[in-house]
Structures are given as structure tokens and as C-alpha cells.
């Protein structure tokens, strides 16, 4: 084997998501390398839930994540920029009106 490489090349990267408690969504906590899904799940347990941080784990191949591009962040999210009226704070409510 050469240098730090693992035999057979570098293992693929997996993104790890943990559900902290029932009733909460899975949240991205980090990533790790593993040769297959089973080991990715076991390694994720050992690396990210050593202190009972979770009741459920997802591992997803990083290569499968489709992401928006930071370069076009401005234009991509632009349609929402001028629509303040989607927020309740946009509206004026007369003094004394409650439960609105």
C-alpha cells in the first residue's frame, strides 16, 4: 500500500444524520469514510453517538447529495427576497387588537 491510502483506495465518504430524540428531525452531524453502508452505520454509532446523542441514525453517500451552488446563491434564492408580505411582521395591527 502507498502512504496513508487504505488498500483498494480511499473508502467513500458518508454524511451522518442523528435524531436526538423521538419527535425531532434527523440533523446533519458530520461525515466519515466507510467501505459500505453497514460499516458506515456502525462507525457513525461509534463516532457520533458515544454519549447517547441519538435514537436513530441515517448515513447517506456524500456523492448522492445534490446541493445548490454557492456561486449562484444570490440569484437562486432571489425570488423570496422581495416578498416581505409572506411574514406576519409585514402587517400593521391596530393597538389593542389581540390574538391576531
Amino acid at each position, binding site marked *: 500500500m502507498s502512504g496513508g491510502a487504505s*488498500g*483498494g483506495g480511499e*473508502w467513500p465518504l458518508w454524511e451522518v444524520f442523528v435524531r436526538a430524540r423521538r419527535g425531532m428531525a434527523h440533523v446533519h452531524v458530520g461525515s466519515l469514510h466507510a467501505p459500505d453502508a453497514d460499516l458506515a452505520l456502525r462507525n457513525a454509532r461509534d463516532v457520533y453517538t458515544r454519549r447517547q446523542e441519538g435514537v436513530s441514525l441515517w448515513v447517506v453517500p456524500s456523492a448522492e447529495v445534490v446541493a445548490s451552488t454557492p456561486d449562484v446563491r444570490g440569484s437562486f434564492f432571489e425570488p423570496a427576497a422581495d416578498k416581505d408580505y409572506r411574514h406576519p411582521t409585514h402587517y400593521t395591527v391596530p393597538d389593542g387588537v389581540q390574538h391576531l
Partner: protein
Amino acid sequence: MDRSTTVEPRDPMPEGYRRTLVRQIAQHAHSEIIGMQPEGEWISRAPSLRRKAILMAKVQDEAGHGLYLYAAAETLGTPRADLLEALHAGRQKYSSIFNYPTLTWADVGAIGWLVDGAAIVNQVPLCRCSYGPYARAMVRICKEESFHQRQGFEILHTLARGTAEQRAMAQDAVDRFWWPSLMMFGPPDADSPNTEQSMAWGIKRFTNDELRQRFVDIAVPQAEALGLTLPDPELRWDEDRGHWHFGTPDFAELAEVVAGRGPCNADRLAHRVRAHEDGAWVREAAAAHAAKRAAREPAA
């Protein structure tokens, strides 16, 4: 650089910023996994089952911390294999503190209290570092480190209240680890050329000397609580500054250890390379197993 914005992996960033981060995060990751060695040596000799379980958990944490940090470095486009190769070839450094030997059980206590204590002082500000993946890794690490420091303090506290021999062992460990712990903050500000740039980039939030002072101010009362002394004749409360005055660490010694001429440099690196090579068959077997299963379930 805008202080309020966090930089994320695919954002455009200056090449120098990226290079500095890779160097710092890699050095930090290497320190975590090399740091497993001085304490790992005592797992089989821990004085009780409780201490053994605690020490194994701590050493396992260090491996995990290394992994979080290698993952953070990889988001900058440098594969982990390259970083390990640079460590093994001696092109990248790890913290000089791990080149000191652990001669007695009390050293395990001194490492937890002083070395992890110094690391926490260094690392807490990094939770607000400008690079998102590094800052997030540091939040996890800092949460886990606090048990490391407490277990070390407890070991020393127990020894300090034990027999005269145990007390002497605790004092000896503190005497040997105090100055190297102060050196963990790096050279004095006047000799730290990278500090200014790192602070401008929001990678560093405080200077080496500021953090060193903070650590001394925290450690002195803790030493009093242990009933142990710190080996610095200059140590005294400075009423005017509102800080403890302390002597100057031997920075020539620090430079020697960083240059590879510390007590254990060669052993630490050789052990690391051996462990990596001895583990090659496990990595190969796991890869072969994954390939075989993938071939067997083409439709899955």
C-alpha cells in the same frame, strides 16, 4: 474579512486562508491521534477497573476527535490519506506536548488536568472560528473534553490525599508537565509571525500569550485545591494587572521538541506508522467484503 459571516466549504476563499486552515486543522487532527499514545500506554496498568474504563473512553474520544478534524480538513479539498501521509513523512506536525513520556500513573492525571486543560483554553475560542466545519467540530470536541480534564483532576486529587509516596508521585507529575503545558500555547507573541494574519482571518481569536495567561489564572487556584505546588518560583498574584505573574517557559526547549528532538518524537511517529501499516489488512478486508457484496447484489 467580514467577522459576522461563517465561511462554508464551497465558498470562494483566498488560497492563503485555505492553506492556513488545512495546516492548522491537520496539525490539530494529528495531535488528537498521536495524543492517544501517552495515555494508551497506561490502559493495561490502570489501578482499578473504573480507571481503566474511563481511560479507554478518553482514548476512544481522542480517536473520534481526530476523525471529526480530518473530516473538517477534507472539506477544504485535501484527502485524509494525504494528511496521514504528510504526518508519517514528518512534513506536518502535531502538538509538542505528546513528545513527553508518561512515566507514572500520576502522569495520566497531570495530562488530563493540565494538558487537556490547556487544550480547552486553546479550543473554546475556536468554536467561533470563521470556518464553519472547523468551528462545528470544535463544539463537539469541547463538550467531550470537559470530562477528560475532570478525570485527570480527580486522579491527582485522589493521589494527593493518599500515602506520602502517592502524594510525591502526583507532585512529580505536575512538576514535569507544568512547563510543557505552558508551551502548548506556542511561542511568545513577538515570535509568532502567523498570529496577526490568523486573527485577521478569524481563525484565531486571541494571541498565544493571552491564552497562556488565561490558563495560568485558571490553573493556580486549582493547584491550591489539589494541595500541590507549581514549579515556578516567580509565580505571584499581580494586584495591578489582576492576573498571576509567571516565569518564562523555556522556548528553546519548545523549539527543540518541535524540530523533532524531544524525548519521544521518534517513538511516537514510529508507533503511529506501525499501527497504520499493521491495520492495512483490516482496511483491505473491509474493502474486499464491500466489493464482494456489491457484486452479489447488482440490482440492490
